[in-house]
């Protein structure tokens, strides 16, 4: 229990720092940034209380907001992703989730990709809708969501695969 808590605390801080120091300043093609801090929400232990997940996601989003001066958009998107996570888990992992026996380090890569893709799309859609906050900017919202999602999904998968292989 203690080591799990320690692991997730370190992951929380590391992802936050990498996000605000490096990933938010990439600006690929002028506006495309990956938001990799959501890996924390993806990999949060499943058996843990959902209320804890909601609260920590809110805290993480709020800290990112504080660093990036973006009001509360990251907090809102993170909390939304944390709330919809069980549905995503059920659709992408099916039976495994019902038995509460998912280990992210040794699941099928296909299910993992589905899970991360849908999660990232939901998170980014909420994020950019709130950031632009204007219905006439719907095309801009969709464009930003699409391109940033591609970037985020690739980076998330790479990071998850890289670090889970190490632990074996």
């Amino acid at each position, binding site marked *: 229990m203690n080591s799990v808590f320690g692991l997730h605390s370190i992951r929380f801080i590391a992802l936050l*720092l990498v996000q*605000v*120091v490096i990933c*938010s*300043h990439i*600006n690929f093609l*002028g*506006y*495309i*940034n990956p938001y990799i801090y959501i890996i924390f929400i993806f990999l949060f232990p499943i058996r843990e209380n*959902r*209320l804890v997940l*909601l*609260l920590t996601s*809110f805290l993480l*989003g*709020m800290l990112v*907001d*504080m*660093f*990036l*001066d*973006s*009001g*509360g*958009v990251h*907090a*809102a998107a993170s*909390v*939304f992703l*944390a*709330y919809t996570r069980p549905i995503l888990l059920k659709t992408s992992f099916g039976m495994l989730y019902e038995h509460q026996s998912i280990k992210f380090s040794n699941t099928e890569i296909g299910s993992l990709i589905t899970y991360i893709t849908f999660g990232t799309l939901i998170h980014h859609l909420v994020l950019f809708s*709130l*950031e*632009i*906050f204007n219905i006439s*900017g719907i095309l*801009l919202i969709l464009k930003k969501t699409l391109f940033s999602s591609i970037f985020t999904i690739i980076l998330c998968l790479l990071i998850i695969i890289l670090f889970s292989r190490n632990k074996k």
Partner: protein
Amino acid sequence: MQQIINFVIRNKTFLLFFLLFSIALALTIQSHSYHRSKFINSANSLTGGVYSISNSVDGYFGLKKENEILSEENKQLKEALFNLKNSSNGVTVDSSFAGKVFKVRTAEVYKNSYSLTNNYLTINKGKNDSIQQDFGVITSKGIVGIIDNISGNYATVLSILNKKSKINAKLKSTTHKGSLTWDGKSPHFTQLEDISTFAPVKVGDTIETGGESAIFPKGIGIGTVDSIEKDISGDTYTLQVKLFNDMTNIGTIYIIENLDRAEILDLESSNNE
């Protein structure tokens, strides 16, 4: 009573989600209005500390460029100085009558964003360096923004690349004035609205600050006119302004304090009463 408690316990996840989401949404909406004191901003010792460490590392990569900008600015200042000496032709001007109106301080940029719709910079000067809200921020080339939130050692700057930003600006050749806004699209262009159609404006004309507000002195460069568009009403132009500043690459900035600001604001508020 029992039922209410049961209801809360049954739906506790949804209720917590709803509460947190509402808080986040409230903060988002609040951040869309100008100059509300926000709790969530990067002018505090935690974010400032992290940015100062990361800046101390990647500051080295821009040193050469920074040097070029400085020597270019030195050249311009030297030119202005020599021309001034020649024109005064040995007549000493008594400077005791010419009061100092603007005070300039330098600061380093710790964080600069330009890809969002509401962009802010974080700089390493704050209340302890006598920086206050609504001071102007410029570089050697042109304007950057206005000081927004301040803490002890750090401050955030409301960039001109921000939908909330509205800065008084004018054509250099005439005195037709308008307000400078941003449409959130390109970090190299801003829009100058409400220029009268009587103004003789051409593509390539220079736009500078108007000096109507107590924030910026008159005549600081902003950019050049890139294209001209007539408003729907047909009475005013909206000009696309190509900025002199490369807003994506800002290292050192100057903060301008208008020493007469309190007096000007006092006078304006007494007029409004």
